[in-house]
Structure formats: structure tokens, C-alpha cells
């Protein structure tokens, strides 16, 4: 059987699949279930901020033909209330990565510090939410801001710091470079793509927030491209996310240069055992092709044949 273990910035994972931030990641017990029953190699929490936040009004999530449209608006119980949840998740046998959002590097540092204190194995900075005003994409599209925030967070924690990026920039490689230059330990790509649905029957947008982000199969080609460009620009590891439903989907990301992948909408499409299924398909593929370690195929598509 092929060895599908992987390592990202010192973080050792039994397999390359992680739960993506924001999907059932708000409570300790659901994170634990994704580890224990789903088979994920790691889980990322919902993005947590300084204060409790209700998020946008409803409708805030919708099934479209090729994906899911959401404008949750970063609802979360606030970092302090999240301690209990994180501690429950830590009972599982896989790393828990704390996703955080804020509007300044200082607040990001405070949040990261608390995540570290609570026991998170790493933090993921959400610099890419496409529908939450001043949070997310607004800063994540500016290399200077990215450099500043990542640098500040790096100065305040010892655990690895990952930055999650949006594809809605003309050159995502440049943003990834800013992450690397500031000492960031890894890049996660991609977050959802800004999108909306209008209901002609009513002549109005369906989402209460009008604009949201699309995830799922529709964004996979954009995600694979982003990972390919990032892994061609930086040395730090890349974690691929967007539209992964099958082992073949994950392999596209891995061959584009991802050391691990995250799955969000796939949990909806395939159920929570999407993680074990994807892992199974990856090892079957590797066995058939006589690859023995994941390392052999990471970034393979960059190398030519």
C-alpha cells in the first residue's frame, strides 16, 4: 500500500486530506467527528474572530448547479468561547488548525496566540473571505498588508502560520511570495470566488447579503491553477482547496504542487466519509501507478514528462 502520509511545515499528517475552514467546523464535537469518523488527516476550525459574531442574515447558503453559494459572514462564538470547542477537538488523533480572521495584524496576533495557547497545531489566517467587508479579500489582495500581517503573527507564535488566499487577484504568486517573505510557513488556496444568484421570478438576489462566494466543483479548475502558480513561485508548502470530491480531484491539486488538500463542499456532496474515500482513491491510484510515497507526485505536473 502506498504511503500517503505528508508533512507541512513540520506538521505530520497521516493522510493529505483536511477539513476546510467553515464547514461544520464551529463546534468541538463536529471537528472530532470529522477526525474520528470522517478520517481526515487534520481539521481546520471555522474562522474565529475577537468577538462573537452572528454573520449575515439568511438566506446565507444555497445549492447552485455547479457548487454552493454562501455568504455566512463569518459567524463565530468569539475566540474566548472557542477554547472549550478546541479542547474537545484535540481529543482526536489529528492536528487541529485554528482559522482566524481580524482586521489588523495586532488582532490576528492575539487570536493566533490564543489558538496556540488552547493547543492548536497551527493557525490559518483567513485573508480571503470574499463577502465580509473589511475582513478577508480586502487585505488579502494587497501584498504589503499580507506581508505585515503574516510578519506580526509570526513574531507572536511558535506554531506554523499558514495564510489562506483568494484567487481573485491578477497574480496570486505575488501574494504567496509576500507570505513567504514575511516568514509564513505555508499557503492555503483557494477560498471561495465572489459570486451571486439572482432569482428572476422575484427580480432580486437570493442571498440576504446579496453577494457571496462560490465553492465546489465549479471552482476546482481555478483552484488547481492557483496552486500550480503558487507552487511555481514559492518554496513553502501549499495546501490546495476548492471543489475536491474524489481522489482524482485531490491528485490534480497534489500534482499541481499541493502537499495536502482541504475539503469543504465535498462534505455536503459526498458525506463526511469523503476524507477516507479520497484517501482510498489516492492510494489505489498510487499503487496502480507504482508510486510508493506521496512526495513522488507532489508537484509532478510542474516537472514536465
Amino acid at each position, binding site marked *: 500500500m502506498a504511503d500517503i502520509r505528508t508533512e507541512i511545515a513540520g506538521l505530520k499528517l497521516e493522510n493529505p486530506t483536511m477539513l476546510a475552514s*467553515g*464547514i*461544520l*467546523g*464551529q*463546534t468541538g*464535537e*463536529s471537528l*472530532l*467527528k470529522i477526525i474520528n469518523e470522517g478520517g481526515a488527516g487534520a481539521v481546520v476550525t*471555522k474562522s474565529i474572530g475577537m468577538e*462573537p*459574531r*452572528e*454573520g449575515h*442574515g*439568511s*438566506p*446565507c*447558503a*444555497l*445549492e447552485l448547479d455547479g457548487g*454552493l453559494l*454562501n455568504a*455566512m459572514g463569518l*459567524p*463565530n*462564538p*468569539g475566540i474566548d*468561547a472557542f477554547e472549550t470547542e478546541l479542547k474537545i477537538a484535540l481529543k482526536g488523533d489529528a492536528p487541529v488548525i485554528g482559522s482566524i480572521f481580524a482586521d489588523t495584524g495586532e488582532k490576528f496576533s492575539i487570536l493566533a496566540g490564543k489558538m496556540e495557547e488552547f493547543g492548536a497545531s497551527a493557525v490559518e489566517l483567513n485573508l480571503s473571505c470574499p463577502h465580509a467587508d473589511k475582513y478577508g479579500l480586502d487585505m488579502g489582495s494587497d501584498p504589503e498588508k499580507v506581508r505585515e500581517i503574516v510578519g506580526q503573527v509570526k513574531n507572536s507564535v511558535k506554531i506554523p502560520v499558514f495564510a489562506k488566499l483568494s484567487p481573485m487577484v491578477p497574480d496570486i504568486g505575488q501574494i504567496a511570495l509576500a507570505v513567504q517573505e514575511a516568514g509564513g510557513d505555508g499557503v492555503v488556496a483557494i477560498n471561495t470566488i465572489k459570486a451571486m*444568484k439572482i*432569482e428572476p*421570478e*422575484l427580480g*432580486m438576489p*437570493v442571498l*440576504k447579503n446579496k453577494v457571496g462566494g462560490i465553492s465546489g466543483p465549479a471552482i476546482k479548475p481555478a483552484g488547481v491553477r492557483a496552486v500550480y502558480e503558487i507552487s511555481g513561485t514559492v518554496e513553502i508548502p501549499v495546501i490546495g482547496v476548492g471543489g475536491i470530491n474524489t481522489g482524482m480531484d485531490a491528485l490534480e491539486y497534489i500534482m499541481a504542487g499541493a502537499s495536502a488538500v482541504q475539503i*469543504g*463542499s465535498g*462534505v*455536503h456532496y459526498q458525506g463526511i466519509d469523503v476524507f477516507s474515500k479520497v484517501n482510498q482513491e489516492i492510494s489505489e491510484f498510487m499503487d496502480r501507478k507504482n508510486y510508493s510515497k506521496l512526495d513522488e507526485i507532489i508537484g509532478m505536473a510542474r516537472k514536465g514528462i
Partner: protein
Amino acid sequence: MQIVQVSEVINETNNIKTIKFKLPVESKPGQFIMVWIPGIDEIPMSLSYSDGITVDNVGEATQAIHALEIGSQIGIKGPYGNGFDLSENNFLLVGGGTGIAALAQAAEKLSQSGKNLRIAIGARTASDLLFQERMKAFGEVHVATDDGSSGHHGFVTQVVEKLIAEKKPDMILACGPEPMMVAVVGLAGDISIQCSLERYMKCGFGICGSCQCGKYTVCKDGPVFSGQQLAEIEDFGKWKRDAAGKPVWF
């Protein structure tokens, strides 16, 4: 998301209305839909009819539903959730408040398949009692009101205790305030039971996690849970989560 037109509005009680519309898909008793009142909100509602919902006016969204007229357009997502398992033979249904709405289609289906059922309905006062007449067509109806204005004076759980003592059902279905359901689970003892939970829902289809209750995602794994499952859920009857995901005690 399907846009449907309101085809009928029925005043059930002072504060409860049934809204009917053409639901373009099949549903199972116990399933719910997400109802979008354009410009206002989207909220979960049990299908009290295969083509209707029965709504207690408790806030902005439910008030907006009460203001709908025939021809008004609303959006529907779903049906979502698992629904009740109706394979046993002797049923006791327990509905508190609008909880009976979630049980109504189960009662109808059970009666159609000739099964034995008794129905206990509780409300604060006689004029709040929902579906008393509708349920009589499906089975033996027992009523409780907090103020004694109709049926048993007191909690519906007391009626349940009596009904179980009279004849042990092989399945109890319950829907209502969680503390009431905790009491019914207690009374059930070794009798099988299924409870339909109402938790704060945002997406309705199992992606956002706001309805999480213990290890279960209520909108997808539920809203109907067995007694065994409930026994594993620490939160059951103790706390739920608000829109921010913070635990709030009942």
C-alpha cells in the same frame, strides 16, 4: 431554491396560520423545508402538510409569513432532514405547541396504513391548541392545557404518563420544546422513541454547522433522533447554540 405561490391561508389559532403552496417535490413525514420570505429572512419549517407549513407568529420572519396572501411568492429549499421511521405498529404521538405540526403528516400516514395511534397535544390554553380537529380523524386525541381550559389541566407529559400506563406503545414520536422532550424520553423508559429537534439553522443542508447538537448535525442527521442517539448528546435539553454558535442554556 424553488419559487412557489401561496395558494391558501388558514387561520389555525390566534397566533398560528397554515400556508399552503405547491411543493414541487416529494417529502417524508418529519422532514422540513427552508422558507425564504423575500427581503426578510429564511427559516426552517416542518411540513405540516405535503404542501403546507403551520407557523406560530413569534418574530420578524414568522410575522412576515402571517402577512402573506394568496398569490404571494416565497422561496423553498428542501425538503431536508431524515423524517420519522414509521415501521412500528402502536404509536403514541406527543406534540407540544407547534410541535404537533411536525407530527401531523406522520399521524396522517400512520392512520392511512391502519396503524394504532394515540395523540397527545399540549398548549398553554384552549385557543392555542393546534390541529385538535385534524388529528381526531387519525387517532385517539388527548389534550392538555397549562390553564386547564381544555382537557387535562397541566403538562402534556402528565397525559403521556397516563397513556403509557394504560397501554404501552411500541414507538413514541415527540416534538415540542426540548425540556418537554427530555421529560417524555424519561417517561418512555425502554419504549422506543423518536424526537424531532428544533435548532438554530442557517444553511439547512448540513454545511455550515450552526445547528450542531453534540456530534450530530440536526438539519442533516436529524431533525429526528432516536432515544439512543439522544442519550449520547450531552446538549439535549440543556443548551442550544445561538446565531453566533455560542451555547445558550434552555
